[in-house]
């Protein structure tokens, strides 16, 4: 009886130990495969050149169009997301601070929004684009990606803001500041670390997403100059090149995947680093 209990415990412990480490192993394995395959094909030419004629049939050139395009698209979308999202998050935590039920309902709806797949945003962006009379362009892409990342930004920022004690706001009000001043000067400052993390999180999601821009951003070999030109993105560039029958073109898809993964890792790591660095300004 007793021994069986002990054996059961050992067995489960072993299984769960394996499960936990296999998650780490899967991550390392994934990164190892992507990097080892892609680094061979990666060269300075890939990063700093635009696609030349016949690029998709093995001709010369690189993926600069996609790198810069992804960057434009995500920066634009992040700016738009900040314009919509930051005041919304502040509103929840300043104006609605006494209305716990309303706050919870809003958070619940935002959480539900978080799970909507990006292809649905893509399809919706497409209908929006037709409605607004746009064609596949940087602007349409920015709007679509902004719709996708705003809930992510708001929810992440809100998570930090909700930990700020109410007393801080009360102190600010009692000194005679308006709700706006409290929101922008006190609460926003307190949440700065969280804001940066949320910003980078949303930015990373914007760079990595392919399905939402499939209909709306178009694809081009050039770097767009105005907002109504089509734009190439890294994920789509990987996707298109990988479906090529030519070995050399597929190799470039692996190289592009390394570039994309590198950016994402960089964003992840700097989000952690920056949030720690700014966290020391926070009054506990």
């Amino acid at each position, binding site marked *: 009886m007793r021994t069986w*209990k*002990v054996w059961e*415990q050992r067995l*489960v*412990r072993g*299984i*769960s*130990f394996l*499960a*936990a480490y296999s998650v*780490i192993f*899967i*991550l390392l*394995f*994934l990164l190892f*495969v*992507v990097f080892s395959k892609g680094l061979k094909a990666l060269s300075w030419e890939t990063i700093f050149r635009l696609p030349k004629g016949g690029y998709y049939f093995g001709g010369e050139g690189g993926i600069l169009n996609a790198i810069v395009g992804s960057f434009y698209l995500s920066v634009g979308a992040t700016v738009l997301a900040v314009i*919509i*999202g930051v*005041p*919304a998050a502040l*509103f929840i935590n300043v104006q609605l601070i006494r209305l716990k039920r309303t706050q*919870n309902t809003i*958070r*619940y*709806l935002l*959480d*539900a*929004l978080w*799970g909507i*797949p*990006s*292809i*649905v*945003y*893509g*399809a*919706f962006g*497409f*209908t929006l684009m037709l409605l607004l009379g746009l064609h596949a362009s940087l602007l349409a892409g920015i709007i679509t990606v902004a719709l996708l990342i*705003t809930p992510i930004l708001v929810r992440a920022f809100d998570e930090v803001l909700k930990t700020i004690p109410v007393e801080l706001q009360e102190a600010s009000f009692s000194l005679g500041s*308006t709700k706006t*001043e409290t*929101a*922008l000067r006190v609460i926003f400052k307190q949440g700065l670390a969280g804001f940066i993390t949320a910003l980078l999180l949303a930015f*990373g999601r914007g*760079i*990595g*997403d392919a*399905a939402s821009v499939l209909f709306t951003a178009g694809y081009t070999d050039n770097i767009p100059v105005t907002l109504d030109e089509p734009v190439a993105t890294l*994920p789509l560039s*990987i996707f298109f090149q*990988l479906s090529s029958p030519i070995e050399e073109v597929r190799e470039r898809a*692996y190289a592009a*995947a390394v570039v*994309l*993964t590198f950016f*994402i890792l960089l964003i*992840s790591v700097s989000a*952690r680093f920056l949030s720690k660095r700014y966290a020391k300004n926070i009054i506990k």
Partner: protein
Amino acid sequence: MNRIRRISDLLVNIWMRAGLYLLLAIPVLIGVGLYWKAAPIIGGHSLSDLLFSRQWFPMKGEFGFMPFIYSSAYVTVLAFILSAPLCLFAAIYLTQFGKHRLLQVMLPVIDILAGIPSVVYGVWGVLVIVPAVAEYLAPLFGVVSSGYSLLSGGIVLAVMCIPYMLNMLIEVFQTIPVGMKEASLSLGATHWEMVKHVIIRKGFPGILSAFGLGIAKAFGETIAVLMVVGNTLDISVSPFSSGYPLPALIANNYGEMMSIPDYDSALMFAALLLFVIILIINLFFRYFIHKTEEI
């Protein structure tokens, strides 16, 4: 001075309100927008025909979504079977058996996994999973497969689900009060018995929710699945044959959308279907989670 402050207060207030209302209106706008575009096909066919018919001939105006719904469900169930037990045990180890340090290492790892773009998972799937299925797994069962199969889709999706599911499970386990665990241990239960009877029972709604949300995530995933699942139209029982999930259908045909009548509206119907299913799953399980968090 006072006037300026009051006006700026008012303006910023309007801005904040507008931001929030816009945000909350997004799901409504998506629903209405997609319905508006899908209306021709919903009006022209009966809903049961659209959902349960196997006839997919866009040129002839026949749109039966059954093969796509079947593939989506198949791949999602496979992903669930592969990832759910792994995540459950990993979460148990990380929060109950393992050292606290390991959890500290694990959380950034989960973050990074969650941040890796879908297309990179797809590349990994094409490089590793597809050949593995074609060369090792299929011959093991005496089947010939190109590797671009429902099984590959399921495996890639399972890996993509891990960070979300694991993260939620860890959060669920951490909300269980320490006092309850101590009480159980002090009555002479082994560590595992405590986990079994206290943690799992008490966290059951949370565990279910984590699984549910993981499933929803898998169901809507597009690019990675599209890259490994083969994209052929057929309803087949074998996991080694290829499939064609709903998101892949939408993503794959955007080029031809405008040239065939009613085709765009059929694809928007697919998006609407995806949106409604996932929104319902999300609302349902999030409600569970919010209920448990409030206590």
